[in-house]
Every structure is written in C-alpha cells, then in structure tokens.
C-alpha cells in the first residue's frame, strides 16, 4: 500500500517554522497545501482516479462508437440492407486486414476482452499495455463496422481497463491498487457501452472481481457513473432499445416465460458448445491460417448476410424491431439460429469483438419467437384482456418475451445470474418484469450449468492455457467451516480453581499435551502438561491452575466460521476452543491445526472424486 508522504513539503516547512509563520501562509499556499493533502491520500487518489478513468473511458467509447458507425457507413453503405456484393466482400477483406493487424502488431487484442481483463488482474498485476487499447479500438471498430457478428461492449470493457491500467501505472499506484484499478476501468467501459451503470458494476463484481468490498465498490460505481454521464452527454439519453411496457395479466403467462427459459438455455448451450468445439480446432491449425481465418469467417458471414442482413454487426436496431413486433416467429427463429452460427464463426476465427450484443440479440430473437408462437396459438386472449383492464391499447406481449429472452440467454451464456436479472430491469426500467425474468433466467442458467459445467469465459481461458479463477466455481465451492473440522474436547478442559496436583492427576492418562482452562466467564486459556509438571517440581502443587495462566487468553472460534479464520487465529497455539456464539463459556469442541489440514485434505479428495471423467 502506498504510504502517504510523512509530511508534504510545505507542511514540513511550516512545521520547522514558528507558529506565527504558519499563520502567515498565503491563501494560495494554503490551497496548495490542501490540494496536495487531498492528492496524496491513497484512498482519495483512488476515488479521484476512478472518476478520471470513468471520464476517459466514456470519451473513448464515444469515439469507438462513432468509429464503428463511420466504418459501417463507408464500407457497407448507409442502407440497412447493403448490396450483396458489399455484404460478401467487405467482411472478408476487412477480416484480412484485421488478421494482419492482430498477428503483426496487436496480438493481445484477440478475444472478447473479459478474459484478457481478468488475466491482467490475476496474472499481470493489473498490467494492460496502452498498445492493447489502441489495437482493440482499431481492430474491433473495423470488425464490427464491417459487419462481423460481434459487439462493442466487451472491447469497451477491455479498453476501459487498459486506460485505467495506464493511468494507474503512470501514477505509480501500488501493485494492489493497480490490480483494482483495471476492474474500475472495465466497469466504466462496459457501463458506457451498454448505457447501464448498474449492470456494468454487477458484471464486474460478479465476473471479474468476484467479491464485494466497500472500497472497490465505491471506485467501480464512480467509474461507471462518470463514463455513462460522458456517454449520454455526447450520444444522447436515448436507451439502446425502446422497451415496450409490460404487465403480467394472467399467471398462465409465467408458464410461457418458463418456456423462454428452457429454449434460451438450450440455445445458449448450442452456442457455447459450438465455440467449445470449433475454437481449439481452429487454433490448432497452422499459424499461417490465422491470417485467413477472420476473412473466411467474414465470407461465411457475407453469404448469410445477403439473405439475412440483420445478423451483421451488433444488431441493436434489429433487437428493437423484434421487440416491437416487426417479425413473425419464423423470421425470429431463423435470425436466432443464424446469429448463433454467425457469432460462433466470427468469434472462433479470432476476430476481436464482444459477445454481449450477440448474446442479447440471440435472446431477443429466441424470446420473441417463443412469445409470438405462444401469442398466436395459446394466449390469444392476453392483449385483449390487457386492453380491457387498462382501458388503453397495449402492444403485443412479444416485446416482453424478447426482453426476457435477452436475460435468459445472457444467464445461459455468460453465467452471471445476478447481472442478467438486473440488466433486464435496468434496460426496461420496469420492475414488474422481474418475476418472468427471474423464472426464465434461473431455468436457462440451470440448464446451461447442467449440460455445460464450465462457463464460457473459464472455457476460453483454459483453452488459452490460463488458469484464471472461475467466479462461478468460487461461488459454488462449499466453504470449509470449523464445524467440519472440530473434535470433541473430551477431558482436555481443566478447571482454573483446581490445584496443580489435581490437574496433573486428571491429565495423567491423557495423550494430549495441552489443555483448555475456562478462567472467567467466556475467557479461555490453555496450559501445557510441561507447565503443570514444572510447577509441581517447583513445589507449587497446591497452587491453583489460575495462578499459572498469566494474562494471556486463547483466541476463540465459532462453529460456523471458516477454517481460514481458524487458521489465522491459530497462530502458535496447539488448539483453539470452539465456543457457542450465544454463550462463550459453552465449549462446542476444539480444533487443532491437524484437524484443519485433515479437513482440507478430505475436501480435496472429494473434489477430485467429483471431477468429470
């Protein structure tokens, strides 16, 4: 941790000078001193830096967004459905350029950016070179602008982290803070790209940092909010989608939303399995093929795009259209299938770009298709009922299904369940939708977990030979607690009022060398057999045990506390008393270092037994 300087220079001078001289400091000098004091406090610096990072990330994303649009208009034309020749040629040629840039200049920009940010945090002490930011900006703008089926969110996340890392290094932050500053930038980048600060904060906490702590949360929130403010300042307040209003009219609808969860879960499985299957095989091909893989992906995408131009690019307009009933279920289903294929192809080819937008695109199509089918064939009465109840016309429920589908697919692919729920709430601004979202997201998440135990980000990092911490595994891992390791205290407890001679008699037959002594209400001490023998040999056999204890008390632990807590408290003590939380005098058991090690060993064996294969 960076220690603040012992005294700022002027304060040191002031300290050397007599008191009246200090009072004579000019207002400018006083202000300077205050500013320095502010700028040299580690926590203050970190929070201030979070805001600066947020502002930089916001600006960077605005430029990134403009660049993507500029490239799209100039390469593919301003039409929503460009000419077939362009659709076939542009992604392929852009793919060649991207591959060259990645292979020759920016090898670190491959992939979505989430794992790369995690690598920076967990492996490289928060180090992300600024060249990665530049490379990510150029290659992703070119890829998304030329129609590759990828999104701008994950690259924005990595660029934000890169900016934060650069600033952190320039400010010579400590290693610990450097590790923390990258997620702050990542949250800022994601918040700007998605225009949803809460979702960004949650995603970073849930998927990158993996734990909540007040210090980090404050910085992450500040960064995310600053970047969103900048993004809205330049790109406008309009949300990504115009979300139709939603009202749950009939409980039967929830069954329909459960079906969205099932279909969303299966569709997410299809996508993850496609990536899991194809990516390592493509990576295993000779190195020269990596120069043509993005171009080949572009060509495949172009062929699909001639027929279904909606699958090109991030596809926010198409999601908006799907939410407003502009496609029938057949078209929605086709778009879902081909978006899975197109995104899979784009992603496994090594083209840099994100998975957020394609994921929610697929979800919107899947949800919309299910919603349209259910509306047409099962719940034809619903819109009429809504109109009757509200006395006003309502849109069809397809929009709500599309929205719920986004969450389901996000939960299934990204495996960030909390983020997936809050994302939909934040996008829709409607808390009535929480029940359908929770139902479908949970189902999709469980299906995905059941049939694809390794989440996609962990899968990608393992394919890349990295062992990044899996946030899901950490969340799911059963914690080892004191109650799992403690053993019965037996006769190892002595009474502090016993004499040394009596105490020695009590422990004569026992194998233990150290005994607990309850000295006062809830206060435990310990004494060794050697100490008792020594006292007896010094003719202090008639003395009370209490007299030998001194002031030292034993640390205590409770049964529900983790073994990590017990380990920390153990220190050099041979055992610790495990006491009841409501009555510290009530001994539940004792725990030794050996107990702890045995329990960890058993847990490891259990984990090994549970490993697939």
């Amino acid at each position, binding site marked *: *941790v*960076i*220690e603040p*300087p012992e005294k*700022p*220079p002027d304060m040191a001078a002031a300290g050397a000078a007599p008191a009246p001289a200090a009072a004579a400091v000019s207002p400018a000098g006083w202000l300077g001193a205050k*500013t*320095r004091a502010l*700028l*040299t406090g580690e926590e203050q*610096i970190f929070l*201030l*830096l979070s805001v*600066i990072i947020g*502002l*930089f990330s916001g*600006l960077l994303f*605005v*430029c990134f967004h*403009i660049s993507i*649009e*500029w490239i799209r*208009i100039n390469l593919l034309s*301003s*039409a*929503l*459905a460009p000419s077939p020749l362009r659709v076939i040629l542009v992604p392929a040629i852009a793919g060649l350029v991207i591959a060259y840039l990645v292979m020759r200049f920016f090898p670190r920009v491959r992939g979505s950016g989430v794992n790369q940010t995690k690598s920076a945090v967990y492996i490289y002490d928060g180090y992300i070179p600024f060249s990665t930011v530049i490379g990510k900006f150029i290659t992703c703008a070119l890829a998304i602008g030329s129609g590759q089926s990828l999104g701008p969110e994950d690259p924005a996340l990595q660029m934000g982290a890169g900016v934060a890392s650069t*600033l952190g290094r*320039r*400010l*010579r932050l*400590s*290693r610990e803070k450097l590790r923390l500053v990258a997620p702050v930038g990542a949250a800022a980048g994601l918040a700007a790209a998605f225009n949803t600060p809460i979702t960004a904060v949650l995603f970073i906490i849930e998927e990158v940092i993996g734990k909540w702590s007040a210090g980090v949360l404050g910085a992450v929130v500040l960064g995310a909010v600053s970047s969103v403010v900048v993004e809205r300042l*330049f*790109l406008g307040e*309009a949300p990504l989608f*115009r979300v*139709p*209003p939603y009202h749950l009219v009939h409980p039967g609808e929830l069954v329909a939303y459960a079906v969205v969860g099932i279909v969303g879960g299966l569709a997410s499985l299809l996508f993850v399995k496609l990536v899991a299957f194809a990516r390592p095989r493509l990576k295993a091909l000779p190195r020269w093929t990596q120069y043509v893989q993005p171009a080949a992906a572009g060509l495949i995408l172009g062929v699909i795009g001639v027929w279904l131009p909606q699958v090109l690019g991030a596809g926010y*307009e198409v999601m*908006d259209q799907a939410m*407003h*009933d*502009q496609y029938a279920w057949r078209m929605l289903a086709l778009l879902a299938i081909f978006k899975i294929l197109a995104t899979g192809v784009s992603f496994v080819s090594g083209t840099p770009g994100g998975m957020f937008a394609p994921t929610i695109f697929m979800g919107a199509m899947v949800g919309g298709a299910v919603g349209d089918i259910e509306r047409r064939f099962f719940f034809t009465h619903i819109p009429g009922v809504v109109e009757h109840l509200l006395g*006003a*016309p*309502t*849109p*069809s429920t397809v929009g709500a299904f599309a929205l719920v589908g986004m969450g389901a697919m996000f939960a299934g692919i990204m495996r960030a369940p909390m983020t997936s729920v809050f994302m939909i709430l934040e996008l829709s601004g409607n808390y009535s939708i929480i029940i359908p979202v929770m139902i479908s997201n949970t189902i999709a998440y469980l299906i995905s977990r059941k049939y694809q135990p390794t989440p996609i980000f962990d899968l990608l990092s393992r394919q890349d030979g990295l062992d990044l911490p899996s946030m899901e595994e950490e969340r799911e891992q059963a914690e080892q607690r004191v109650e799992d390791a403690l053993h019965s205290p037996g006769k190892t407890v002595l009474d502090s009022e016993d004499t040394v001679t009596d105490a020695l008699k009590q422990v004569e037959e026992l194998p233990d060398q150290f005994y607990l002594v309850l000295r006062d209400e809830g206060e435990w001490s310990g004494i060794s057999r050697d100490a008792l023998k020594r006292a007896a040999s010094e003719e202090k056999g008639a003395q009370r045990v209490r007299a030998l204890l001194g002031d030292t008390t034993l640390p205590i632990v409770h049964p529900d506390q983790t073994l990590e807590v017990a380990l920390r408290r153990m220190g050099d003590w041979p055992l610790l008393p495990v006491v009841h939380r409501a009555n510290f005098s009530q001994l539940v058991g004792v725990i030794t270092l050996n107990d702890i090690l045995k329990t960890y060993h058993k847990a490891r064996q259990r984990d090994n037994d549970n490993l697939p294969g």
Partner: protein
Amino acid sequence: MSEGEQACPRCGRVIPEGHSECPYCAKAHSWWTVQRETLLLASVAVLVVLFAITGVAANLYHAKQKALAQEWFVRGEQALNADQAEKALEDFRTSLAYAPGNDVYRLRLAQALMAAHRTDEARSHLLTLWREEPGDGTVNLELARLAVDENDMPDALSYFHNAIYGVWSRNPEEQRRQVRLELCKFLIRQNAKTQAQSELIALAGELPDIASQRTLVAGLFREAGDPARALDEYRKALKIDRRSEEALLGAGEVAYQTGDYAAAVTYLERAMGSGSVPPRVREELKTARLVLSLDPYNPRLLRAEADRRVLSAFQIASARLDGCLKSRGLNPQPPPNQQPSALQSLAQQERKLQPRAHLYVLSRNPDLRLNFMDLVSNVEETTEKQCGEPSGDDLALLLISRLHGGSKQ
C-alpha cells in the same frame, strides 16, 4: 519471504536488511508526490482537450446521422408517391435507424406499412407513437384507420374520438372536421345510422360557410337516413352558393324523395338550368311535374279543377288496369263459381264507378272523390306489384297515392 523480511508496500519488492524503506521507491520518493500531482493535473488537461475533440466528432457524427436520416426519408417519400410501398418502408426504416426518436419518420413508416398491408408492424409503430403522445391526432387517426381495416368497431370509435379531440399541429379545426367526416362515413358503411346521424349533427354544427362542405354533409345525412336534415343542409349550401349544381341536384332529389314535389321541381329545374344533369334526374323532374299537375289533393285548387283531376286520375288508372289485365291474360269478368283475382275485383269496382264518372255527379256528391281516389290508389299499388314498375302518369299517381296515405286517405 523469510521471517524478518519486509515487503515494500508500494512495489512489493523485499526491503533489504538495514533499510527502513524500499531503496527503489525511496529514490523516486522526493519527486514522486510532485509527479503524481502533475500527472493528475495533466490528466485533467488531457481530458479537457479530449472533451473538445470528442465534442467536435460527436457533432459531426450527429450531423451526419441527421443528414442520412433526412436523405432516406426523402427517398421513402418519393417511393411512396410512386406507389412503391415496399421500397418506401425500407427507406423509412433506414431513416428511422438514423433518427430513432423522430416521430414524423416513424409515422411515415407506419403509413408505408399500412400501404403495404403489413398491419401488425404498422400497429406496433403507431402504438409506440401513441404511448409517447396519446393525444396526438394523426396517430389516433391512423390507429382508427387500422381498426377500420380490421372492422374493429369499438377500437375505431375510440381512436376516431381520440383523434377528434386530440392535438393537431396544423389547422386543427379542419383536421378534426375531416376526422369526424371519416368517422361518419365509417359509421354509415357499418350501417350504424343512428350513431352516424349524431356525429353528423355535431359535424354540421362545426361546419364553416362553405357550400361544398355543407353539400357533402347533406349527402351523408341522406345516406344516414335523415333526408330532412339533408335538405336543410342543402338549403344552407344554396344560401351560400345559389348556383351550386351539386346542392341543387341534392336538394331536388331529397325533396323528390320526401314528397316535396314542388320544391323538387324548383331545385331540379334550377339544376338543369345550371348544367347537364343525369337522365335519372330528368325523369324525376318529369315525374315531379306530373305529380304536381295530377295531384287532386292540392289545397290551392278550385273545387272544379280538383274534380277534374280526380276523374282524370280515374281514367288513367282504368287504362292501367285494362292494360295489366290484358298483359296477364285475364278477363275482367271472372268465370262463374270462381273467386275473382285482385285485378278482377278492381275491374269490377271500376265498372261500378264508371257510370258515375262525371263532373256534375262529383259536384253533387263530393264524397265520391274519395271512392275514386281510393280505387286509383289500389289500382296503382296492385298493378305495380303484378305488372311491374309504372311510369309517366301512373307513376305520378302512385306517388300521389303514397304521399297522401294511399287508399286510407
């Protein structure tokens, strides 16, 4: 790290023995604080510059988006004017992608979708607009038209009324009148004539003094089954423009239909004088003139003239009855032991009255007029049913009979 060694909290390196602080970091310590302040200030300066650059870029970007939106909108308008609804809606959709918040573009897209018969999509866009501006007249009108297309009477009525009482940016009074006019036409098509009449009464109360509009509303009153108000509106139209051919014709026809043959003759003669009229109207004028010339019930007639007209009517009806009997191959006298047909009964009555068909008989016995006219009425009604539509004098007599309550008079 072995016991006793301490790691530098800043760089993480082990602090060598004999050093109280990290020698690597201590070197930079004196300038480090200054450096940090400078860097933070420099960051702020860079931010200011970047804000300015991004601001310029964002302005250029928004201007480009706006220009593209406008360009595609113009293309859409051209395509729509050329009846290429499919192309137009793609163009409008593109323009909307560049200006998602533009309600005019969205409305035109919805209209293009309606023109392309893609009602579900059109409704979705219109509902989006409706949610943003529930009182917008144009949006409500388009939603009403959608409901009309789908024969959804309650929705159509609701949206039409929303449109009538809604907000219109340009010429609101005229727009509201046009909407009510459209609603009236819809109600008449739906045969909801009572509702149509009430809407038309409201519309008539709002009309400006423009003959064509009064004439139009009068025509709708006629269609809604309210000829009296129709005639009233035609008259108001004629007060504004005495030579309005349409109003004259309409007034003449309504007067003819309501049995005001004197007015009908007046209006139709004026209509003929101001331009060409359809043959049907000429026939109506002719018939109306005959009605006026044959009608014995006219209170202004002298008694002798009235008697003369009664006898004339009797002779015309007798001739019609003879002709009808012949055309159906019937003998005026039914065979013995056989019930006479309706025509034969009338012929028997006619034979009974024939000897009394003299002016002096009628002048002595005025009650006979009713007997004669009852027979005339019965003959014309029965022959119309059995021998087809009458024409000329017979038609005039039939109309006179109906005007005065037939044989019950």
